[in-house]
């Protein structure tokens, strides 16, 4: 009870003058990662405070669904925290353009990040960076290794093998072949379409062509992932239409489903829930023909920036420099297996499944989700429409061609390629 009151007093007196300069300054972090409260309080913040006794950090997360709305309101009214966890691309770009996120281009730690890593938190011309990249997440499929061994199955590498495996699991009947539902819609788009899509549209090549306007969503490469999704329907559990995301997670962790289309973030979620009940494995999205180059979605997902209105810009920058350091990358990558540090620093990950996911970076070409950069800037919003379309396609209420045509039409209604890059 005492601490917050002291913090509040500090916060109010800090403006009054540096008379209290000896006392540590308190920095508050805004975040949507309720999940990480323990990690920050027990691991990350103590490590930072040990080397920076003049700064006290408080991690104050908001439930993810309310984060953007709550943060925007607090920024507008001037009551937001000093450090702001950044969503990738436009949500943060908008805050920077409104002058609410500070320009961090000159931060020394920025040298530790590649251009690709920084691209999610830069102006379109790449001249200004406003958040320190923290982590990316990689899509793929997690499977129940114990079940695979039991049924004598191998990790599929091609689409045909993938469906052959699904057929066998279905035939056997012990397990639901694949755990996915369409109730919450986003899994269909994110863990479905964006997961398998890069293999069809050749990762960055297709993504950039779409932005440049040389490819359309109605092109074969962009419709094909929908066609594969439509085939998934037969391998999902009964009543998948009403199956929510937590339902899918539980189906898999309770050992009732064999394959789980996923993102690497689930590693940290699943480990404690599964315990010793069975072993997990992972394979990247299968390619069309054996020997094809594989592409993975290695999506820049989370960064951290500075509230331009903070009363403690120096201390906040000190903290951000530390977040950009190899020390932080090492701590964060291991505290949150499946959130892969974007830093160039060599990080050793302890979790074998996390190692498996990150090893795909060497075998496959990396890309980010196709709808995130620039293309979801207008109305109708391409990403949100893709959720709806992917769910419809899996439920079989919209054909892949119709869904693609609808998305393309929505995109064309506001997006004129070429004009985007300012």
């Amino acid at each position, binding site marked *: 009870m005492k601490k917050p009151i002291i913090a509040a007093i500090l916060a109010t007196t800090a403006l009054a003058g540096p008379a209290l300069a000896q006392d540590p300054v308190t920095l508050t972090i805004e975040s949507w990662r309720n999940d990480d409260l323990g990690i920050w309080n027990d691991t990350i913040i103590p490590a930072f405070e040990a080397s920076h006794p003049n700064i006290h950090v408080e991690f104050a997360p908001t439930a993810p669904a309310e984060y953007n709305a709550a943060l*925007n309101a607090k920024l507008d009214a001037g009551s937001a925290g000093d450090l702001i966890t950044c969503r990738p691309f436009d949500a943060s770009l908008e805050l920077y353009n409104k002058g609410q996120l500070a320009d961090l281009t000159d931060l020394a730690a920025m040298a530790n990040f590649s251009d690709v890593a920084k691209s999610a938190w830069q102006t379109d011309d790449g001249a200004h960076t406003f958040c320190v990249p923290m982590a990316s997440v990689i899509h793929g499929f997690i499977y129940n290794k114990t079940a695979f061994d039991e049924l004598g199955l191998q990790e599929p590498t091609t689409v045909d093998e993938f469906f052959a495996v699904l057929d066998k699991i279905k035939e056997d009947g012990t397990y639901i072949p694949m755990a996915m539902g369409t109730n919450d*819609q986003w899994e269909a788009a994110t863990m479905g379409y964006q997961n398998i899509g890069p293999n069809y549209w050749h990762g960055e090549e297709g993504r950039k062509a779409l932005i440049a306007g040389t490819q359309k969503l109605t092109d074969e490469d962009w419709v094909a992932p929908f066609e594969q999704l439509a085939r998934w329907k037969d391998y999902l559990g*009964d*009543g998948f239409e009403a199956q929510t995301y937590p339902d899918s997670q539980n189906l898999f962790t309770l050992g009732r489903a064999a394959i789980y289309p996923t993102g690497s973030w689930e590693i940290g979620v699943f480990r404690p829930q599964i315990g010793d009940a069975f072993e997990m494995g992972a394979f990247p999205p299968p390619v069309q023909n054996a020997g094809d180059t594989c592409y993975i979605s290695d999506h820049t997902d989370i960064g951290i920036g500075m509230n331009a209105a903070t009363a403690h810009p120096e201390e906040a920058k000190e903290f951000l420099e530390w977040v950009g350091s190899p020390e932080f990358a090492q701590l964060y990558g291991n505290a949150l297996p499946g959130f892969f540090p974007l830093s160039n620093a060599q990080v050793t990950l302890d979790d074998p499944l996390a190692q498996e996911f990150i090893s795909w970076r060497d075998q496959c070409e990396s890309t980010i989700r196709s709808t995130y950069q620039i293309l979801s800037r207008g109305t109708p919003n391409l990403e949100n429409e893709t*959720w709806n379309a992917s769910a419809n396609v899996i439920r079989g*209420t919209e054909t892949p061609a119709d869904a693609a045509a609808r998305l393309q039409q929505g995109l064309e209604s506001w997006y004129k390629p070429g004009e985007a890059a300012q």
Partner: protein
Amino acid sequence: MAARRATRWHIAVFLAPAVLVYTAVMILPLFGTLNLSLYRAEGFVGLANFRTLFGDPHWSEQFWNALRNNVWFFIIHMLVQNPIGILLAALLSSPRLRLAAFYRTAIFIPTILSFVIVGFVWKLILSPIWGIAPSMLQAVGLKFLFQPFLGQEETALTTLALISVWQFVGIPMMLIYAALLSIPDEVLEAAEMDGITGWSRFWKVQLPLILPAIGIISILTFVGNFNAFDLIYVAQGALAGPNFATDILGTFLYRTFFGFQLQLGDPNMGAAIATAMFLIILAGVCVYLFAIQTRLRRYQF
């Protein structure tokens, strides 16, 4: 209502605290927001946002879909929630009913629950996976009736409306109950002298007397339903799936005003939607205040 001396200061004293707090904390911020509907980022645009809302198919289709769904949501509440509420209140108010306090409390409990819990528990019960509803239906031989209700476009909205009825039936029940208890005993005794008892007493004596209260619950249901948001948001998310089958004005407004996922909030279009909703609700309330309420009062005495 005697005529009074020149200035009746007490009227101002009675009204002042409510009017001041309400104006400062609620009305000024809200109308400041509604005012945004006349602007875009580039400045004052008059009614352009409304032309977009009703003229651009992308917006107007969503609006009419949400309005249609909302009307259906309201109809279910009027047809299911309010009659059940009145029935329960009538039963509870019957004299010397044992356990009345227990029933009243038990039936009211769902109303107290937070939306988070209501969404969780009904999704758990209706889930095709964890088996509560399927196994219960199986036990009575009706397994074939089971469907993934919340996941199908045809059933999702009605299912959610019924969950909402379950949650809020305590409100009309309590209001009607209070109204029934307010009927003076002399009236009921007089009726009894005339040999009017039981259900006919309810129909002939009590019902006419609680018509104003029924008017209130109808208008409260109307206002509540057209502002509803939380249950759908908790159960189906801001995109109100499947395929916008459960999108009502509240979710449409929230998505637009505050933004959702990669869609950034658009306070201007959001304010335009809010203004449209406000006018719909205001029209309903005016119909009630000026047409229904005055008639009801004439009927009463």
